């Protein structure tokens, strides 16, 4: 291409200076230009991550006294439903009984609540299949039932039947006092 033009040949200088040094400058310039483009690209990617005000709402505090025994309350956390369930003794017992059953995603009931707080179950309320919101108290195991594709969860939120691959997720949370939990 370039060689076809008279008197205009970038590759072969008339004087014989070191070709590696010549190449180095072109390569360095090209690399630096690519580096500049890459540096600018990152902010344009990062801007799609959650913004400061979104992150600010990433944790919620909740007063448990509002939940009656045997009931479940759904609150919004990070834009998703969060189940806070006040379990009865019978529900806890049935969950523990099933610890040894054949589970798709094996987990003991003990591991799914805070120590000494077996009556409080805090779960992210989206079905692990495709993200629908399971209904409270439905299904064959008395936990939750997902109306979209028929996943059954037990009273510990473990998947027992249906297409969902894993148990309902337990979020990061902590008891700030006996009656207040902080989620996130």
């Amino acid at each position: 291409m370039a060689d076809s033009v008279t008197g205009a040949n970038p590759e072969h200088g008339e004087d014989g200076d070191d070709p590696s040094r010549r190449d180095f400058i072109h390569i360095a310039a090209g690399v630096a230009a690519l580096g500049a483009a890459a540096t600018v690209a990152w902010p344009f990617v990062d801007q799609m991550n959650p913004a400061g005000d979104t992150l600010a709402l990433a944790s919620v505090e909740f007063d448990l006294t509002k939940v009656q025994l045997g009931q479940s309350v759904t609150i919004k956390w990070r834009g998703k439903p969060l189940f806070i369930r006040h379990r009865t003794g019978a529900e806890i017992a049935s969950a523990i009984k099933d610890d040894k059953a054949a589970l798709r995603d094996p987990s003991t009931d003990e591991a799914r609540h805070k120590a000494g707080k077996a009556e409080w179950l805090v779960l992210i309320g989206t079905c692990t299949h495709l993200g629908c919101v399971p209904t409270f108290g439905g299904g064959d195991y008395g936990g939750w039932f997902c109306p979209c594709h028929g996943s059954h969860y037990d009273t510990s939120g473990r998947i027992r039947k249906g297409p969902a691959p894993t148990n309902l997720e337990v979020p990061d949370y902590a008891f700030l006092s006996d009656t207040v939990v902080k989620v996130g």
Partner: protein
Amino acid sequence: MSGHSNYVPKTGFERWLDTRLPIARLAYDSLVDFPTPKNLNYWYTFGGILALCLGIQLVSGIVLAMHYVPHVDHAFASVERIMRDVNYGWLVRYMHANGASMFFIAVYAHMFRGLYYGSYKAPRELLWILGCVIYLLMMATAFMGYVLPWGQMSFHGAVVITNLFGALPLVGQSITTWLWGGFAVDNSTLNRFFSLHYLMPFMIAGVVILHIWALHVTGNNNPTGVQVKSKADTVPFHPYYTVKDGFAISVFMLMFAAFVFFTPNALGHPDNYVPANPLVTPAHIVPEWYFLPFYAILRAVPDKLMGVLLMFGAIAVLFVLPWLDTSRVRSMRYRPTTRMYFFIFVVACLVLGFCGGRLPDEYVIPGLKTFQLLDADLNSMVWLSRFAAAYYFGYFLIILPVMGLTENPLSQPKSISEPVFSHSAALPVGAAASPEKRG
């Protein structure tokens, strides 16, 4: 695009592709092998700079649209949220806002270069006209973009500009109502401006493709204005002009970055950080700097309709420029008298810009009261803009047509290579100079 191609597919895939969609051939012919005059100076790098500007505005604009809310109650706060909470939102927004100004700096340099070297003359009339279309679309896009943050200047700027159309007889009022979608600039107006502001850059990109296509048919003009005669006059676009444009772009980016990072609001107006209030107009309402010359022409005319017509006429005259300039010599290098008028024209444009940013009654020379001429003091911005506006139109409508017929141009070199090879050697006078003499 322009006939002959030197592209040779090297791999099997390239051969396969070349017989189905010769996109690699197109890229090779227009970006690598394209024969470009070897004497283009730095003024010719603004085309590449403008392509980059368009790219930056498109990418940053698409990103901003992901966070912006086009509603009168949320627009201002959503723009501030972009700058406060969105990751690197401040960078994207300041790039976009200052990018508009950079775009206009580059486009004005590009246009003045075209005017100086006669790049609008045959056979490049359509190339020039497509450029004017791009410029017009740019102005519409920039205006609508300035409305979106919904600050005081956004709002009242939109009111003033849309009211321009009200000057048209009979249909004026209906047109403004139609533009507004209501009885005043309001939420409907903001929504449609957002939609159009998003659309128009893609129209610009489309016209840019036509502009480049036309360029590749006629080939580049060059500072001598002499047509390319042989291969000795040209170099392949790559690497010669990719690296030259690349260097110019990096220098331009230094200026761009200085604005974005250190004085991001210097080219804007403080009042646009006050949320729009339809009940109070800011003390001084001015458009962005790139519209100031046209704003000055508008205000120079005491009649509303005539002012509007003259303002649009200032752009319209660019479209017919190829037929107004009667000279057969392209470059001002060989037109010493007209060159002088050209520089006065540049000054007139600057003066118009200066006047557009001032109050019409302000004194040009502070404190010097002269005498009342018709409606204003002679030493006032309004009279200065009248003189400059008269020169603006006079340059296109009188000077260029007349000079082409009466001037005596210097002799042009026979070819682009000639002035380089012969240096100060005597030019073969008769041969080169005679075709330019007309009359």
